[in-house]
């Protein structure tokens, strides 16, 4: 008879023992919360270092042995560590990170996350003035227009923006009222502050966020730089620092208001030249150019140029240069 009772005992207790040995998420949850892995940054770029952290708000991981495996390779240094530092793979690859848990009751389970590194580039194109020959990029100034483009590249091509949904924010203010399908290009006015933050998030048509980035965008004041202009060769691309010499009989100078809103540059409310404090007609159709002639005796004179919008007074700049003749 006794073996019948043994058989019944084994039959009843076998599922319990099996569950304890094999484990699943349900066995490690408490209050409906499962352990998860979070990444910092949330969407690592290709080749970018990131920190993976095992999050457990239920306390069920307490006392568990933690092991890490990245792309099917064990990470010995990660033994019993809640956070590990790793490097994302190349663009277009799929990188699986697994955290293995073994509780004090010898129950085991796995938590995993898949990292799909992708390039998300934000290209900022401020619509402010720089000379045509200048090979650098313009910078935003207060109220000037900025065009921004988000480009996603998976290692082989740019992703089709029409199959993605974009969300843009500047200083927490949503651009264009909300998310826009295919909206990888936006325009906005530069807000107040020296370093507004531009954030873009990209969501696929299934509603999953696939990439997100933020960048600090500078907002600068316009700067005035003088250049000498030659009748034959055009503009000398070396700037005049604080003084210029009138060697011959005539000297033509051009004032370049770097980072002035292009709308103000094209139609300035104020654009005036002063010689020794006296407003002077520059005698040219180009308001940013003046030609000086030697009057006779040698000496020095102070040349000043001022350009400004009267609607947005911060859209303006004034500076002077000493002319030796």
């Amino acid at each position, binding site marked *: 008879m006794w073996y019948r009772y043994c058989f019944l005992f084994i039959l009843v207790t076998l599922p319990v023992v099996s569950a304890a040995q094999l484990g699943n998420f349900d066995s490690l949850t408490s209050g409906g919360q499962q352990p998860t892995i979070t990444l910092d940054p949330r969407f690592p770029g290709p080749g970018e270092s990131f920190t993976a952290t095992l999050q457990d708000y239920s306390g069920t991981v307490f006392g568990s042995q933690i092991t890490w495996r990245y792309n099917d390779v064990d990470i010995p240094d990660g033994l019993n560590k809640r956070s590990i530092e790793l490097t994302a793979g190349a663009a277009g690859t799929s990188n699986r990170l697994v955290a293995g848990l073994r509780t004090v009751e010898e129950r085991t389970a796995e938590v995993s996350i898949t990292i799909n590194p992708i390039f998300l580039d*934000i*290209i900022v194109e401020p619509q402010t003035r720089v000379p045509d020959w200048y090979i*650098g990029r313009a910078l935003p100034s207060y109220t000037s227009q900025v*065009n921004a483009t988000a480009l996603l*590249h998976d*290692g082989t091509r740019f992703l089709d923006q029409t199959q993605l949904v974009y969300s843009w924010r500047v200083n927490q203010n949503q651009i264009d009222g909300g998310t826009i399908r295919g909206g990888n290009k936006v325009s906005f006015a530069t807000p107040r502050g020296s370093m507004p933050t531009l954030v873009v998030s990209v969501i696929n048509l299934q509603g999953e966020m696939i990439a997100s980035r933020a960048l600090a965008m500078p907002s600068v004041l316009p700067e005035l*730089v003088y250049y000498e202009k030659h009748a034959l060769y055009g503009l000398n*691309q070396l700037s005049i620092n604080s003084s210029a010499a009138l060697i011959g009989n005539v000297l033509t100078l051009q004032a370049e208001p770097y980072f002035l809103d292009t709308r103000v540059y094209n139609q300035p409310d104020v654009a005036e030249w002063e010689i020794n404090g006296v407003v002077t007609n520059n005698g040219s159709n180009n308001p940013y150019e003046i030609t000086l002639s030697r009057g006779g005796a040698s000496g020095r004179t102070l040349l000043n140029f001022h350009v400004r919008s009267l609607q947005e007074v911060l859209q303006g700049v004034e500076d002077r240069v000493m002319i030796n003749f």
Partner: protein
Amino acid sequence: MKRTILIVSGVAVVLLLIGVWAYILFTGTTSETVSFNDFGFGDTTDPTVLLPLIEETEPDPVAGGQSERLRQLTTKPVVGFAEILPTSTTSPVVVYHVEAGTGHIFSLDLDTREERRVSATTIPLATKAVLTPNGQHVLIQSDTGVRASFVIGTLSTSSDRMSNIPLDESIVSFAATLENQFVYAVTAGDTLVAKLYEPATGSVTTLFTIPFREATISWHHTAAGPHIVYPKATSRLEGYVYSYTNGVVSRLNASGYGLSAVGSASAIIYGSFDGEAYTSYSVGNDALVSVATPITLIPEKCRFTNTNSTVALCGVSFDPLPHLMPDPWYRGDVILNDSLWEYNTVSRSARLLVSPETATGRQVDLINPQLDSTDSHFYFQNKVDDTLWLYEYR
């Protein structure tokens, strides 16, 4: 001692002294090469006497040779130049250069240094030009900005008149390839379109489209590429590097503030500003990790050689670079004093070729580096006066 012996000895000494005096009097010196007091009694142990002779007979051959390889080719500013492929092995090596302002084209024989005007057709306010290596066609930009216009000229072998065809497009960047074609980029809405112009037939084909406008293109010497594209550099905004080969775009693993780049089929060199200092790196086109270069390279001053895609020739300045590089250099606020260096992206080693200041006494702020098809000659301009220079690399 007897008095006789003493007198004889004294007379003998006197006669000996008279003999020495007479020898010196009639021969001048004891030999042609040694000094007055050297009587040939054996080598001196004083090395300071010998060193000047060694210096006189064995000058440093390396320093002298490197200096002779560097030449200033023009005294007038130029806006474009190209070494013309010789038609035969005995043909002289000539360089065509386009004069700033007038657009006149001159031929310069590198051996005889004879200069000849091959085009007297005036292109007013010529600001940039490129020539095909066969010397038959030129693309010239006149004026800048909204007033800019572009013409494609065909040089004549029988006269100094050039036949011009206007290229009525809003071109923002252009170059010539070793295949005697022109590549250029035009604005199209909020994008740039790169095109290929075949001057022999006048046909135009689209190469690729760049999905933004404020782009700098570092053109490859072939139409196929790789052409390196990046947003125009500024130290205050982030940049990224794209490579277009046969119309296919790759995103290279390089990004940073103030980023500019130059590349080849194997690697790129890029510089960036990390908030404190300007640093340069090299990275293989398929690599994930960049490596800092042992000397700071400014990509606009570098050119990869045509025959070895891992070697670049660069102008390198050891003056302290200004804060917020590269903006002050672009704006013309600073002038750099460059030496010529060779950098190998594989061995990560750099080699000094020549210092123009040491060799010629002139400071050179190197721009527009170019090589001929065989990498024999490295051409560049001095930003200070836009003159054309040559370094005989091989």
